[in-house]
Each structure stands twice: as C-alpha cells, then as structure tokens.
C-alpha cells in the first residue's frame, strides 16, 4: 500500500498526452466513417427493393447488438497484416454507423411528406431529391445526436488499447506496469477523459436547445 505519488503524475502526464493525440485522431476519423457510412446505410434502408432493405437491416441489427470489443479483437486477429489503428478506426466507425444510420433515418422520416411530393411534382431526379431537398433538412436535425455519439465513441476509444493501438490508456497501462503506479496513471487518464468530454457534452446540450429539440 502506498499513497498517491505526485511525482509519478508529473512524469506520466506527457506520455498520456502523447497517447491522447492518437485517441483524438481515432475519435475524429472514426466519427467521420460513422457519419458518412451511417448516411449511406440510412439512404440504402429506403431503397425501393426489399432485397436491399431486409439484409441491410439484419446486418445492422447484428452489429449493433454485439460487443464492440469482440468485433475489434476478431478483426485484429483476422487481418493481422493491417495496422491496428486502421482496424480500430474502421471497426469503431462501422459499429457507430449502425447507430448513426438510425439517427439519420429518424431525421429523414422527419422531413415532411410534402417535400417528397414537391420533388416528384418538379420531376427532380432521385439524386437531386436527396441532395438538394431531403438531406439538407434531415442532416441539420441530427447534428446534436451525431455529436453525442462522437462523445460516446471518444469514451470507448480505450478499447483500441486491447489491439495494441498506442492511445492514451495504452500509455497509462504501460506506465502503470513499468513503475507500478497504476493509481496515478489511471486516475490521470480518467481525469483527462472527464475534462475533455464534459465541456463537449455541455456544448452539445446547448446546440440541442438552439436547434429546438
């Protein structure tokens, strides 16, 4: 049993912040994948043919109800030649795309029916209908929800440490093991998460209010 060692905190902080850059990178790129793929899935889910919509929905349901950690570790074990960070970003992105696609779907459903009818009346092509009429209205409504998913993804990036991505928690574990100072390393890592995510979530709440949710 030993007390909290402040020297260890000072020593560990630079290492953790180094890892934090990887954490942020994974969050930003993962969110990007989730935002783009989620939109594609939401649009595919509205395809006229059931041959498209039923399999898409089944796969989404499966990915959504199975653990991210198993998906990550499984993907890393299968694709050993791919860089862990790339696997991490793709798996995070795909997993969260199954959430964001539902958010987009709700956003698209929220566009009044008259907008679709007007597009038909103007004989806009499907492409123009989506691009110029439906999506601009749908996406605006879903921005806060997407932001909230980015925050939750941020808090799940430590999973990447398991597949040897050298993000913040990986560094914390390493420092903890090397110096037998788990207390300091993990406390610090937790505080970094809190300091980064709390203001962001307040910001999202403000955005939600402004957009009138």
């Amino acid at each position, binding site marked *: 049993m030993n007390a909290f060692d402040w020297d260890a905190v000072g020593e560990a902080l630079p290492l953790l912040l180094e890892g934090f850059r990887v954490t942020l990178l994974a969050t930003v790129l993962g969110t990007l994948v989730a935002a783009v793929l989620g939109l594609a899935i939401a649009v595919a889910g509205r395809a006229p043919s059931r041959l498209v919509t039923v399999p898409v929905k089944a796969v989404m349901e499966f990915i959504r*109800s199975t653990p991210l*950690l198993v998906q990550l570790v*499984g993907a890393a074990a299968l694709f050993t030649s791919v860089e862990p960070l790339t696997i991490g970003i793709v798996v995070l992105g795909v997993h969260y795309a199954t959430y964001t696609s539902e958010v987009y779907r709700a956003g698209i459903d929220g566009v009044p029916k008259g907008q679709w009818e007007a597009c038909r009346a103007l004989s806009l092509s499907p492409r123009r209908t989506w691009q110029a009429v439906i999506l601009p209205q749908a996406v605006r409504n879903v921005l806060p929800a997407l932001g909230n998913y980015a925050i939750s993804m941020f808090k799940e990036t430590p999973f990447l440490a398991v597949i040897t991505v050298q993000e913040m928690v990986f560094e914390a574990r390493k420092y903890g093991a090397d110096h037998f100072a788990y207390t300091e390393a993990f406390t610090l890592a*937790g505080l970094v998460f809190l300091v980064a995510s*709390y203001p962001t*979530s307040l910001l999202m709440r403000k955005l*939600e209010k402004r957009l009138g949710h």
Partner: protein
Amino acid sequence: MSDFLSTLVDEFPQVRAGLWVTLQATVLGSLLALLLSFTLGLMAGSKLLLVRGVSRTVVEFFRGTSLYIQLFWLYYAMPQLTGYELTPVVCGVVAFGLNYGAYGSEIVRGAINSVPRAQYEAAVALNMSPFHRMRKVILPQAWVQMIPSFTNLLIQLLKCTPLLWLISAADLMTVVQQIRDRTGETLTAYLTLLAAYFVLAYALTLLMNLLERSAKRRLGLHTGTRSLLRTRSAEAATTAGGAR
C-alpha cells in the same frame, strides 16, 4: 464438423461456466445500476440544492470518465491505493453498476419529469403524502416510459461484459478465445462468439418487452403480442441523443 465446433462441444462445461460469469456480471451489474439510477434520479428531483448537486456531480463524474478506466481503476489502482482487493467479477459488477447507474439516473429523471403536471396536482389535491404520491401515482406512469430506455442500457451493459476478459475473469469471451487458440480457427471462433452475444441480447430484449407489457397492463394499456418480438436498439439509438 469443424475442429472449433467439436472442441466447443467437448469443452461444454467450461463454456457454460464462462456463460455463467457473463450472465452474473450482466444481471448483478444491471441490478446495481437500477438501484443507483433510482437513487440518483430521485435525488435529482429534490428541492434541496445540496442533494441535487451531489446527484449531478456523481452522475457527471461516472459518465465523463470512461467505463474502461473505471474498471481498470478498480482492478489495478484500488489495491495499490487501499490494499483492498476485489475479485474480477465484483470489479466488473461495481464498474458496470456505477457507470450505467449514472446513465440510468438520467432516464429516471426524464421519465419522472415527463409525467403530466396535472397528475402531481391531482395527487396534492387528494392530500396524498409525497411518498404515497410518488409510489402510487408518479412512478407507475414513469416506469412504463423508463423500460424501453432501460432495455437499451441493459444491452449496452451486456455488450461491455467482454471487458471482464481484460481483468482475467473467465467470462464467455475468455473461454471461447482459449478454444480458438487451441484450434486456430479465428473466423469461426469470433463469429460464434458474436452470435452468442446476439442471442443473449435478443433474449434480454424479449424479457424486457414482457416486463413493459405487464407494466402497461397495470395502467390499463394493452399491447399486441407482436410488439413483444421487436428489438429496441433501433428506436433507442434515435432517442439516445440527450443521454450521452
């Protein structure tokens, strides 16, 4: 039959033990989370600033510091700091309970606030005590609203239980990975594991749907049998916005 699947069958007692650990952590963790959800959620509605403040601080703390860190802190840091050691499964239960309890308290708070104001006023007019009012009027109505969101949290919690593998509890993931290491069939092993979690998630959803139906019945609302089979993850994803 493939090597992996035959080994899986041969090692059935071990797999069952792993499944049991996973289920234990899920059920006990969610019970602790439920308890905390109500405690913190009801505290959030208090008239006293201090009580509200304590609830808010605890909730933001456990939501803001990643679950992963909380689990590792309990497992690695707490013994170093206090000399007191918890078994891995207990670590899991406590970490899952605290983290999801914080999320759940927002569900409780939101559901209580969504009960129409007139219901409070009517209960006050009938001279009900605050406890009686909560117990007989507000909570039965709020409870129905909470169940779908709780279902979603329960599935999320189940999906976090493979973390137990990292703190060396012999859960389902650990056992299946051991069999995979012996047979070398990576794809089959992980697909089986995913399928197992999918089945567990669906089974839990069905149970929660039954619970929701009985809660609705008590309010005189009746639902069709078909609604029992639906999954919740999709609709919950769209409403999860504020709860992050």
